[in-house]
């Protein structure tokens, strides 16, 4: 009878399933083992390589859990919330940090420093970078060390500016005037005779639009919140800043309301746009003949100003130790090692901007990375995104309305009023 035969079969099946289940949770941490959650990208690659070197030097075994940018946030949030102790070290993009810190997911680093007889990190770190790892911002306890020191730079075509006898742009008005001039006079001057646009920006909803807007918003004297924490994006300054962005958009390639980093960089690399805000990670591709049609022609400088001096948005990668880490002491040893001067130089040579002044000022490094002086200036003047655990949601809502204004769906005034109302609702919920 077939039913008789099914007995042993089903028992085997059940046993297999149960065993598989247990196999998943069987690993217990030993003192010689660390697990790292890293971003799959140039930042995470550098830390991965460092981990391999550390393994070879110390014999500590390091497991790497690598995730794409968006998944990394989800993974870390879910695992740290469930207090699984799955990771001994986590890489965090700095806008995520307030969420992790207010939820008390991270270890205060002070006791670890005290065990070593130190009061805290050395003063070679750029102050703006180190401030990101404190909760509350700048003044509170230290929960994370900065590993990659990105801040926005202004990219512009040196050769085109020279051709028109223009100096490197110092104000947004100069940027707009130049964009207009190039759009009119350099209609066919892209490599291969195509059209060169005066400016190119990212205005896809979410992070992209907000990141490309913030330097203009701040330069025009606008603020996201007043001192009481109420949203003020629809102030006169805020609306003017958005109007200016739309004006600049007229000299941007069509469809820029859905552009992300890839499209912007493609336009710059192909020589079909003359100016943009961009991140240092793209600098090296401009001297790569396989990608760039504008080798040696791209200039990098600090943000232009308007009413206020120009300030870039900071975007650093931090490393922190979860509160439930299994091997917190060993994790701290690795953290200090990986952010030491020597190791950060190795990371910088792998393409990541450092967070230590001595490396930015190292003549050997400046010879390799000629934009380092501008990068340090930009970083030291940079501003963080508002430090609130609700930032992801606020940035999403703000970005939707910025994108709507740029795609022509809403006027600047309507977009800012509606954004302000949504942000107020989000803050209300977060209370």
């Amino acid at each position, binding site marked *: 009878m077939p039913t008789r035969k099914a007995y042993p079969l089903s028992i085997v099946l059940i046993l297999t399933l149960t065993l598989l289940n247990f196999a998943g949770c069987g690993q217990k941490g030993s003192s010689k083992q660390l697990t790292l959650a890293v971003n799959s990208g140039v930042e995470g690659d550098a830390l991965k390589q460092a981990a391999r070197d550390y393994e070879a030097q110390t014999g500590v075994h390091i497991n790497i859990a690598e995730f794409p940018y968006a998944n990394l946030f989800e993974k870390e949030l879910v695992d740290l919330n469930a207090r699984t102790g799955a990771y001994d070290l986590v890489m965090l993009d700095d806008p995520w940090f307030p969420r992790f810190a207010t939820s008390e997911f991270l270890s205060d680093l002070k006791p670890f420093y005290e065990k070593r007889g130190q009061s805290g990190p050395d003063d070679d770190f750029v102050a703006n970078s180190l401030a990101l790892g404190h909760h509350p911002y700048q003044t509170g306890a230290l929960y994370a060390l900065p590993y990659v020191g990105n801040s926005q730079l202004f990219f512009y075509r040196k050769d085109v500016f020279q051709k028109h006898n223009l100096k490197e742009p110092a104000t947004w008005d100069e940027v707009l005037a130049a964009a207009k001039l190039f759009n009119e006079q350099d209609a066919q001057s892209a490599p291969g005779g195509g059209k060169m646009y005066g400016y190119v920006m990212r*205005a896809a*909803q979410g992070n992209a639009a907000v990141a490309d807007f913030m330097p203009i918003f701040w330069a025009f004297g606008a603020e996201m919140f007043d001192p009481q924490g109420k949203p003020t994006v629809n102030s006169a300054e805020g609306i003017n800043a958005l109007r200016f962005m739309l004006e600049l958009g007229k000299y941007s390639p069509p*469809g820029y309301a*859905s552009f992300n980093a890839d499209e912007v960089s493609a336009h710059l690399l192909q020589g079909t746009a003359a100016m943009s805000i961009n991140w240092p990670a793209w600098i090296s591709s401009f001297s790569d003949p396989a990608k760039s049609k504008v080798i040696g022609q791209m200039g990098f400088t600090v943000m232009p100003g308007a009413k206020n001096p120009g300030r870039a948005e900071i975007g650093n990668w931090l490393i922190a130790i979860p509160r439930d880490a299994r091997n917190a002491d060993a994790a701290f040893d690795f953290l200090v090692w990986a952010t030491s001067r020597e190791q950060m130089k190795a990371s910088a040579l792998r393409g990541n901007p450092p967070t230590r002044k001595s490396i930015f000022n190292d003549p050997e490094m400046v010879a390799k990375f000629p934009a380092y002086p501008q990068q340090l200036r930009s970083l030291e003047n940079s501003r963080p995104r508002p430090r609130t655990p609700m930032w992801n949601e606020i940035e*999403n809502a703000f970005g939707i309305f910025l994108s709507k204004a*740029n*795609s022509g769906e809403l006027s600047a005034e309507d977009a800012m009023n509606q954004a302000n109302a949504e942000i107020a609702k989000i803050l209300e919920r977060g209370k």
Partner: protein
Amino acid sequence: MTINFFRHERALPYLLLAPTVAVLLALSIYPLIYSIRVSFQTGAHAGWSPGNFSRLFADRFFLAALGHTLVYAVCALTFEFLLGLSLALLLNEALRGRNIFRALLLAPMMLPPVVVGVVWRLMLNPNFGAINGTLKGAGLDTTALTWTASPRLALASVICVDIWQWTPFMFLVLLAGLQAIPQEPYEAALIDGSSRWQTFRHITLPLLKPAILIALLLRTMDLLRVFDQVFILTEGGPGFATETISLYIYRTAFRFFDFGYAAAMSFVLLVLTNIISLLYIRLLQRQEAR
């Protein structure tokens, strides 16, 4: 002895079912009940609260996403059905090269939606994309055709991609339905001198109805929860123009970390899908009862 054997025989089905039931309970029923609990929690408050559900109706993003989902589902379903039916009727005839056409038509459906999203995103790129390139080559002015970047064209573009990918599914199910129809009614109709339209209207369509309803049911359920292609193509943009409910739920849960509200929205989607599915199934049963 006999009684023992009898008991054994009665217990056996339950024993055999037990693993399945246990797995179902653990993997599907328990999470479902848990998510009901979660949907009644707001913020840090641990008690029961209807806050997430009342928030739904004041949330312009949710209502807009619901609207987009419905427009998306209705438009895509209509075109996929009409195109799928025409293709099935065409390729049911004895055409030359019929098998090659049939195989080729199924290709889009075989591709993972993520791949389809990436390919179309490249093709629809207003500056470097193949579509505008071709149109420009034909002498058309393409400056206004920014496809996924234009608030007016974005939703239509995304729907077109869905139609491209899923019409083959309609075609496949309907073709199978057509092939299952016996020849006799057609022969009888031929003898009675019925026109082609009359044959289609009174023989093909009624006999094809079960296949049509099943195809529509499966596609509707898929369309209401559409996620992957839209996520890759536009991520809901520009602005909010192509945000569907699934995207908004994902964002709320994994970006904003608000699982309660995400669970509440998921339930609305679940109820909506169930109501529509029940309507189809009711129609199907009535058809079979005849």
